């Protein structure tokens, strides 16, 4: 198939998906009982007139369809609405939190792949004690809930007292020089990132090991051995590309999950990312923020899928036949 047209079609379907997600999340949040302003009703200092005026100001008295149309038009111009709870535009609020989350999950994802792929390859190729340790360790990590891993890490760090906990900067960070600030952020990053790595590592490790073990049985690998190809080259140049397809799909998912994977960990370790914001805005019925977070997550999902499909297309020539 024509590659350019393939990409065009994929992007178009991605945009359609985003539109559907926005419609769905908008109408669902409108159907949910109550709004942010309902809390004000209970406040005796706010008169019913003020309340009605506020409703009109935020357009809450208009029908859903109209509100959605307004929202969509604004969103297309980059304006994702206004947060009642934070009294700030949603876009800037989200952008700030998003970058914090991406710093955390990006680092964690990078570390996971950096560790898991070589370990998985070695585990499949060498077998023996390394394989047994990897298999035992990954079973253990898989069976322990994420939250327990994070709490255990926190407990450990609190006792040792070597690392800062909570937030992403020390209280006096304003006085630091740039290098000190970077060091400070990295130190704050250690605990949440480690928790995320420990949670995601076994999945990637297992997939890599399985895919490699299967390819290493293939006749063409035996043939390459018969041609005297170096063992290391055999693994990396011959076997790995042939085993890459399932890993690329997994990589696409990990991109898609960049924003959501860390939700729980962020809340537990106090990382000021999208997770705590999402949770708070749900409780506060600050729906503009909720919708915006959902939209950003969906956009990442679309991008992640597209990336993995294009990578697959590049790596496996057999797919191009269609």
């Amino acid at each position, binding site marked *: 198939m*024509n*590659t*350019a047209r393939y990409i065009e079609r994929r992007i178009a379907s991605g945009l359609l998906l985003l539109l559907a997600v926005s419609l769905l999340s908008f109408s669902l949040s409108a159907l949910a009982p109550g709004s942010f302003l309902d809390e004000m009703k209970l406040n005796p200092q706010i008169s019913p007139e003020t309340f009605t005026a506020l409703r009109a100001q935020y357009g809450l008295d208009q029908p859903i369809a109209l509100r959605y149309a307004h929202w969509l038009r604004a969103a297309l111009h980059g304006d994702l609405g206004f947060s009642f709870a934070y009294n700030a535009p949603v876009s800037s609020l989200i952008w700030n939190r998003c970058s914090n989350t991406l710093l955390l999950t990006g680092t964690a994802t990078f570390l996971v792949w950096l560790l898991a792929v070589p370990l998985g390859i070695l585990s499949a190729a060498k077998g023996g004690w390394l394989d047994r340790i990897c298999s035992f360790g990954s079973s253990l990590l898989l069976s322990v809930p994420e939250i327990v891993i994070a709490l255990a890490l926190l407990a450990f760090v609190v006792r040792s007292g070597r690392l800062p906990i909570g937030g992403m900067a020390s209280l006096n960070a304003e006085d630091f020089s740039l290098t000190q600030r970077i060091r400070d952020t990295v130190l704050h990053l250690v605990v949440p990132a480690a928790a995320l790595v420990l949670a995601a590592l076994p999945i990637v490790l297992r997939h890599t090991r399985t895919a490699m073990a299967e390819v290493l049985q*293939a*006749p*063409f690998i*035996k*043939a*390459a*051995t*018969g*041609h*005297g*190809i*170096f*063992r290391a*080259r055999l693994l990396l*140049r*011959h076997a790995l*590309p*042939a085993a*890459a397809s399932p890993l690329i799909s997994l990589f696409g998912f990990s991109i898609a999950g960049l924003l959501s994977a860390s939700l729980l960990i962020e809340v537990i370790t106090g990382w000021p990312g999208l997770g705590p914001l999402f949770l708070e805005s749900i409780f506060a019925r600050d729906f503009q923020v909720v919708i915006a977070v959902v939209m950003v997550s969906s956009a990442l999902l679309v991008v992640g899928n597209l990336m993995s499909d294009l990578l697959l297309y590049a*790596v*496996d*020539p*057999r797919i*191009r*036949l269609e």
Partner: protein
Amino acid sequence: MSLPYHRDPLLEVSNLSVLYRGAGGQFCAAISHASFDIGAGEIVGVFGASGSGKTTLGLSILRLLPDSAQITAAALRFQGRDLLTLRHEQMRRVRGNEISIMYQEPMLALNPVMRVGEQIAEVFRAHHQVSNRECRERAAEFLQRVHLHKRADAFNAYPHELSGGERHRVVIAQALVCGPSLVIADEPTAGLDAALQNEILDLISELRRDLRVSFLLISHDHAVLDRMCDRTLEMSAGLLTDAAVVLGRNGRSSRPLPRMNAETSGSEQPLVRVSALSKSYQTRGLRFRRGPATGVLRNVDLSIPQDSTVALIGQSGSGKSTLARCLAMWEKPDAGEIELAGQDLLRLTPTELRQFRPRVQLVLQDSAASINPNLNAEQIVEEPLLIQNRGDKHTRRERARQLLEEIGFEPAMFERKPLEFSGGQRQRLAIARAMVLEPQLIIFDESTSGLDSETQQQVLALLAELKKTRRLSYLLISHDLHLVRDIADSILMMQDGSVVEGSREMLAGSTFRARSASAATGSGIALVESQ
């Protein structure tokens, strides 16, 4: 074709035994006390039926057997060095560089995600510390030596984009790119049509002259060994004997092949009628542009009568396999009609198509690739029944066992996985799997080309037997002209995507001859009237 060679042996093997550790801890012997030698520049053949241990012999020389195999030998010496005592790195330097190996099934032996030129260069790179460019130049040179340079894009092609014959050439180039002194060739011509087989054998002879390479040629085909080898050894149940006396000049067995059926009913409506069938594939052009569409099938017309055996011959790349896949509805043709017993297959709804599938079965050339390696023999034959939801568990198993016995499997073999069978046994398994649904038409796409002549006859006898008791037609796609002439009721020829019909009467007075034409005009099979 004997050439003078030094008598001091290049490879000296004495008392080589290979034992496999079975599941219960007991050992079973794959090769017992084999002794032979190969001189410089000599071609030594190993003949044997499928499962006799030929391939194991070849692999054991390079110590490429799995860990469950135990090799013992009084001597396994190559150029004076004992191969059994070499360390891993020393052995690696021998493999592909001094002794190289050509594997049996090129489709499986080539990496599906690496360009073939690169795969040849990789072998050279593993043994020479030279620049990337030199490796590629060397690979390109060898693509030329195996006459693949006519395809401009050969270097950058992936294995699935090449034809069967072209893949064979790539494997040969891989084996020779380092200029080894000995090549172990495991069935180097299996699955090739006669013309290509000739070309490949000529190529091997030519390279042997030019490079003074010795060959250990493993084959089940007497004709190939007779033509190529200075000496031939015979392998039978793990025992190696000198077969020079046993083989006649023409190794083909004189036992007549079973005729399928003489009484062809001409008046009936044909089982299959194909008219104006066309199929083309989109080629990939530069960058993201589309290349021109290549027509593989051009207005094919043919009919297959009820209860008949129709043979289809043609050189590789002429569209035989595409036609087979279209007939089995594995692929949708671009235009035309396919009628099975009066029903137009191209107008079936998906549900109807599903019901139709058991009626036409296709047995492929490459059995190892078409069988699920995780199932055992019994499950493989049973699976189609399961998919079509026929009978209960007990009857399905009974049916599978019955068929396995009919194709000559011992009950002890029922539980084995495909990789534990030899190539010939796997092919019989694939045939059993096609038989189990009792189809009306079975298409054999070069299905017997990988079998030794004895097994081939057994299979053909089985096919004939099955035809006696039920209404069944065969479409045999083959390049083995002798086989086709002996068993087919009618013969069709395929050339450049079109089918030319040849009647039996016409063929009765003529002989086929494979003719390899000059390289410039390409090679072809010609139907030659003998005077």
